[in-house]
């Protein structure tokens, strides 16, 4: 016979404490005060009570003390919460992998909930044989694993005119970085047989927004994936379960979620998300279209407005993230005096193509004001520009693709603020 306990057994210590509360303080009963931190000198409940059984959390969640680490929204940004955006809490994360439950969301018709048994992927258009795949079919193709960042084209878009939102979650949090498992899109297209005049593809989502984007065939055959897993487990519904397109290095809008169809054509379709949206208006009234790549960018995640320095003067760890849609990040420079002097940051962790990179800069804070910036260099030689350098080319109405250098002002109390500097 198996004996099992449901929940915690009442401890003897808890029982005694309850009795003491009635009769007076336990310490007054004669026990001498031990010198030192009572968290060390006194037995804590978790030192003697039993913890949760292995049957308590079949799918684990973060500690209750981490409940503030969550996606946040900014209500005034959009007309409603269905075609809207939320933000990854970058200031609370470290390393380069974004936990699945914290990956920012961007929907145009809400997060669809699709039974994978009822999901189909169609390939049609300029192909030898139009095909339909079930999820079971897709699992039989050779698989690949890749870590890529997905950055919304509008990340930092609210900052074009100046400093607006106070926190890197809000200024830079339309991004996540996970390991995808899936099949190369190339294999699926090969299965259907792309005709010689097939120059573009049109991926389409199964959700109510019917998201579509035109992608040149060269990119489709190069490194695009059709993925069903992220960080080892199935895609989350809000990330396209059961199937999404992965378009490494390119703006997040093109990573069509709930992917149901890929059409091959000889011309781009110029659909709503590549005409009305995701085109970049310049100062002279003309607009760039098909601005696909996300340029090299970085941000200091600590200290930052949501992550002030709370420990006072002395040894201080500055850390942040850098990424480029055109390659890897071999180097990040950091300044703590507003760009008078720069220091090469210490890169830590894997350096993967079109993935986030983690950097650190340790310094001895003397308690004086700081003006923090980071400047990413990517493997093509491109150096992250200042916001002013970008505005020279683009003005302030292009909405998308703001990869300008971010400044945090830190005062003597360690409080940080989003600012711009001369």
């Amino acid at each position: 016979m198996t004996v099992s306990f449901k929940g915690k057994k009442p401890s003897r210590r808890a029982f005694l404490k309850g009795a003491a509360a009635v009769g007076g303080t336990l310490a007054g009963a004669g026990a001498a005060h031990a010198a030192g931190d009572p968290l060390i000198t006194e037995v804590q409940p978790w030192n003697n009570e039993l913890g949760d059984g292995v049957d308590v959390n079949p799918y684990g969640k973060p500690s209750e003390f981490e409940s503030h680490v969550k996606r946040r929204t900014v209500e005034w940004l959009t007309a409603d919460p269905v075609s809207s955006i939320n933000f990854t809490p970058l200031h609370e994360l470290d390393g380069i992998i974004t936990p699945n439950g914290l990956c920012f969301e961007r929907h145009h018709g809400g997060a669809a909930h699709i039974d994978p048994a009822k999901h189909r992927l169609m390939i049609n258009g300029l192909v030898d044989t139009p095909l339909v795949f079930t999820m079971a079919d897709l699992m039989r193709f050779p698989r690949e694993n890749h870590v890529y960042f997905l950055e919304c084209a509008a990340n930092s878009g609210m900052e074009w005119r100046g400093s607006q939102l106070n926190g890197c979650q809000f200024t830079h949090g339309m991004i996540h970085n996970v390991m995808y498992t899936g099949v190369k899109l190339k294999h699926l297209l090969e299965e259907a047989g792309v005709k010689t005049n097939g120059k573009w593809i049109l991926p389409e989502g199964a959700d109510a927004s019917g998201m579509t984007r035109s992608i040149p065939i060269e990119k489709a055959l190069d490194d695009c994936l059709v993925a069903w897993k992220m960080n080892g487990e199935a895609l989350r519904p809000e990330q396209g379960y059961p199937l999404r397109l992965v378009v490494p290095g390119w703006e997040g809008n093109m990573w069509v979620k709930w992917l149901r169809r890929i059409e091959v054509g000889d011309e781009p379709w110029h659909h709503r998300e590549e005409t009305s949206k995701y085109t970049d208006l310049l100062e002279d009234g003309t607009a760039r279209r098909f601005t696909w790549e996300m340029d090299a960018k970085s941000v200091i995640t600590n200290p930052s407005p949501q992550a002030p320095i709370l420990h006072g003067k002395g040894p201080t760890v500055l850390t942040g993230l850098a990424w480029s849609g055109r390659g890897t990040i071999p180097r990040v420079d950091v300044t703590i005096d507003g760009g008078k002097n720069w220091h090469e940051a210490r890169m830590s962790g894997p350096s993967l193509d079109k993935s986030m990179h983690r950097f650190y800069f340790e310094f001895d804070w003397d308690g004086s004001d700081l003006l923090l910036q980071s400047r990413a260099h990517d493997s093509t030689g491109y150096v992250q520009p200042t916001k002013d350098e970008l505005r020279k080319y683009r003005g302030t109405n292009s909405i998308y693709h703001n990869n300008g250098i971010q400044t945090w002002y830190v005062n003597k109390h360690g409080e940080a603020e989003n600012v711009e500097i001369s």
Partner: protein
Amino acid sequence: TPVAAEKLGLGRTATPDEVAAWDIDVRPDGLGLPEGSGSVMDGEELYSEKCSVCHGDFGEAVGRWPVLAGGQDSLTNERPVKTIGSYWPYLSTVWDYVHRAMPFGDAQSLTDDEVYAIVAYLMYLNDLVDDDFVLSKENFLEVPLPNEANFFMDDRADGELKEFAKAEVCMSDCKDAVEITARAAIIDVTPEDAEARKAREAKYS
């Protein structure tokens, strides 16, 4: 680029009816447009019933919902008004998008003729046609949108990428003085979160 490779024989051939059911996209050259037509007059009625609650009686929009009409010659203003008439390059995009994704919350509920009618009315609201206009598959390409010529292919490679690919960057004594020129705290539009602050203080102070 043709792809020559060994096939695995996975998946099955899509039937013509299946392709027809899902292949609803429309291109600027008219490829994908179905047979049908609709008038400005019919469009006005449909629009009032199905669209105006969000987009306003004249496409001016309610609250933060998208503005569909007006804004002509505003693209160089400090606050451009980007609408179908002032910004969008192709009418085909209007047809495709209304048909696939509108009304918001009731997508793909409009018949082909209803979409033609609503698109005709949106053209009328943008001063592109008169109130007796009837839009059809046959005359679809006859009225171009005014802003088509002002879009051009991504040209970052010509200017920005070259300028920002610096062989050397300044590392020390790069400037004499630094001044703060903009502050988010003054604008003060960031959502507050006192709980998160308390939790961090408990952990890190």
